[in-house]
């Protein structure tokens, strides 16, 4: 034992020295050195008329005072997009610092040619390392989404990034995304979390398109068409409502909340929601508890494609009129309400289908994919010219609605 002591001591020293000297980590970042960006807003860089006037006025003033007027980089190649971020004060989450709302989060914004250049411009004025791994929402301004070139660049910037999760919510904002991001909401102070919670809790309303970045990118990969949720700004709150129709990598128009529900019904995505029909001028709200659809495709006598879409639903009646003579607890009456709802659903779906077939000319459901999967022989015929064929396809809707319950009173 003792004889080996020097050897043992040497090896012990060696082990400790090696463990201390060799191990290490290049990528170590302390958590409070990271800025967890929860929401990212991207807009097209545009000088508004008022701003132009303001700048010119200021320039004239400066000239009068004998100063050289400031140059405003109006149309340089670098001024393409406006990127805005918001990150929460992590120190606050740990319980440090005062609870002043202004300290909760830090909004920042800059102009640049692409997302990453903008982020690096933001980084030089921050004391932290920008981290996108916890990004919850990406807001894209209407103006940018309508610009095909810029939109495709932004999409690729996000698609390529390994930090950004595909579970991020990708939303087209009505107006400026930056404005939406810098809103001071009453309900939930941090925009990223706010949007995430809207999606998680209100998806059952079926009033907006429940798709994430990964879904939108996947849909765009096929033909360049997709439907993305829309964000609407209000005074001190946001609403995710309706959807943006993206045609050929460009925002082409909006769909309202009811239209979006119809689109989702055809896409078999509806999980809930309220439909109100009028029976003898009394509004009857119907709560969807289950919904589905079936598609049949065939050639008609003329050789044209015809699609039969059956929209199925189950649910409850949740309201009627107090002390009304006609009681709800009557199978015949229930059947007649079912019929009214069926007509309403068919009308909604026919309407939105007409809009998408003839006004937009976009197959946002990916029926071509449906054909490729389930009817490959039809796909072989029409797959190549689907864009031209889709508006010509005859769409027939029918509906099968069941009312299961009527609440706790007769």
């Amino acid at each position, binding site marked *: 034992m003792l004889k080996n002591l020097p050897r043992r001591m040497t090896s012990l020293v060696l082990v400790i020295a090696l463990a201390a000297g060799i191990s290490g980590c290049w990528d170590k970042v302390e958590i409070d050195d990271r800025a967890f960006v929860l929401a990212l807003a991207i807009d097209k860089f545009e000088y508004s008329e008022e701003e132009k006037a303001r700048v010119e006025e200021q320039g004239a003033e400066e000239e009068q005072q004998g100063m050289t007027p400031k140059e405003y980089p109006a149309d340089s190649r670098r001024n393409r997009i406006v990127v805005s971020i918001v990150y929460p004060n992590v120190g606050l989450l740990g319980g440090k610092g005062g609870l002043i709302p202004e300290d909760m989060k830090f909004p920042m914004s800059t102009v640049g040619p692409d997302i990453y250049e903008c982020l690096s411009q933001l980084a030089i004025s921050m004391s932290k390392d920008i981290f996108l791994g916890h990004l919850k929402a990406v807001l894209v301004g209407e103006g940018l989404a309508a610009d095909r070139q810029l939109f495709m660049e932004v999409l690729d910037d996000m698609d390529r990034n390994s930090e950004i*999760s595909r579970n991020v919510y990708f939303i087209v904002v009505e107006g400026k995304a930056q404005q939406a991001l810098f809103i001071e909401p009453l309900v939930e102070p941090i925009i990223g979390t706010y949007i995430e919670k809207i999606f998680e809790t209100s998806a059952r309303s079926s009033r907006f398109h429940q798709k994430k970045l990964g879904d939108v990118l996947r849909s765009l990969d096929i033909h360049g068409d997709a439907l993305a949720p829309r964000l609407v700004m209000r005074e001190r709150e946001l609403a995710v409502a309706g959807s943006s129709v993206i045609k050929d990598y460009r925002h082409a128009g909006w769909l309202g909340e009811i239209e979006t529900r119809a689109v989702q019904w055809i896409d078999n995505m509806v999980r809930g929601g309220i439909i109100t029909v009028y029976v003898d001028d009394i509004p009857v709200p119907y709560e969807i508890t289950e919904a589905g659809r079936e598609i049949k495709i065939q050639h008609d006598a003329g050789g044209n494609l015809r699609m039969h879409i059956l929209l199925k639903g189950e649910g409850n009646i949740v309201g009627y009129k107090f002390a009304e003579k006609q009681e709800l607890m009557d199978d015949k009456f229930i059947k007649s309400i079912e019929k009214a709802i069926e007509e309403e659903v068919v009308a909604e779906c026919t309407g939105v289908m007409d809009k998408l077939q003839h006004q937009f000319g976009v197959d946002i459901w990916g029926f071509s994919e449906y054909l*490729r999967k389930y009817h490959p022989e039809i796909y072989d015929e029409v797959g190549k010219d689907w864009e031209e064929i889709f508006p010509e396809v005859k769409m027939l809707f029918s509906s099968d609605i069941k009312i299961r319950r009527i609440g706790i009173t007769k």
Partner: protein
Amino acid sequence: MARNDEKITSNQLVAIMISLIIGIGILSLPREVTEEAGPDGWALIIIGGIVSTIVAFIITRLGDLFPGQSVVEYSKTLLTTPLGILYSLGFILYFLFFCAFEVRVFAEVLKQFLLDRTPTEVIAATFLLTSAYMVRQGVASMGRMAELLVPAIIIPYFLFLLPAVGQMKYDNLLPVLRTSPLKLLSGAAVVTTSYLGFELALLLQVYMKRPKDAGKAMLIAMPLIMVFYLAVVISTVSVLGIHEVKKIIWPSLAIFRLIKVPGAFLENIHGFIMSIWVVSIFMTLSGFYYGAVLTLSRMLKLKDHSLLVLPLAPVIYFFSLVPDNVAKVYDFLDMFSMYLGIPFGFIFPVGLYVLAKLRGIKPKEGKDVEKPAAKND
């Protein structure tokens, strides 16, 4: 051959094969099969798997004909000495290139997803040195290590896949078998290279306690790998759809960025998957590294292979840093699979077996199979 006196069991051979063959290819496998055959990619995996199983079995039958000899020795008997030496040299080069690709793709993926500030050189060097340590320990340690690690790779993988089951849309695999048979066959030729690694049996069979069991071991290992590949391809394609699978460089990893574990406070489980994959690559690299070292040491008739381990490390390191960028890496990898992988994995072993059969070579009965091979030559 001090360290190589120890033998491996048939189970250990199965484990070595599984951990060896599942390597860098698994990350891009769904993309490759989908590029070749669209939604019928799984069929390529099956065709490739069957072909590879047959070839792997033939390799062990070849080993049975020459008890106590590895390919280094009997290639000389079958091909004449100069050609045999050439064959062995080619084999070494093949192993070294394979190692280089493992190291490089490992470094690329790790840099992309986990360690974006660590220099590629450091990732490659530390990984290579760790593997060198394993290779120095010899085949028995590798066998035991593989036995331990294979369950640690396979079981967590399927556990982490469970939350994804809800997101799998099996209609992404439709339409079934609409690809033309000709296209399926040409695609299968490309995909079979993802089964490469079984040719290590040409060397390892000698080190088995009962070399006759090698054939059975391969018949267990190869179908298991095929099932694993099938699970990976089907899950990836059904989550992402064929359009996106074709676009993403490493789709098998990408699906774990989509999966949310319900109730878990961790957002991305792909970190765990990365660590499983690192272990699997480690075994792959060690296997091929050992193959190179072993071939060389048997050629030089050395008693201890471990001398050669460290001198080969700089060679692998150098090869691994040759491609300029990730696109070049995959260009080289395609070329490598075509011009070295298919010949050394499929054509040459089968050729050798045919040659042996034509010459009417019968296994030498009664010979001491446990004897070190070097003396048999």
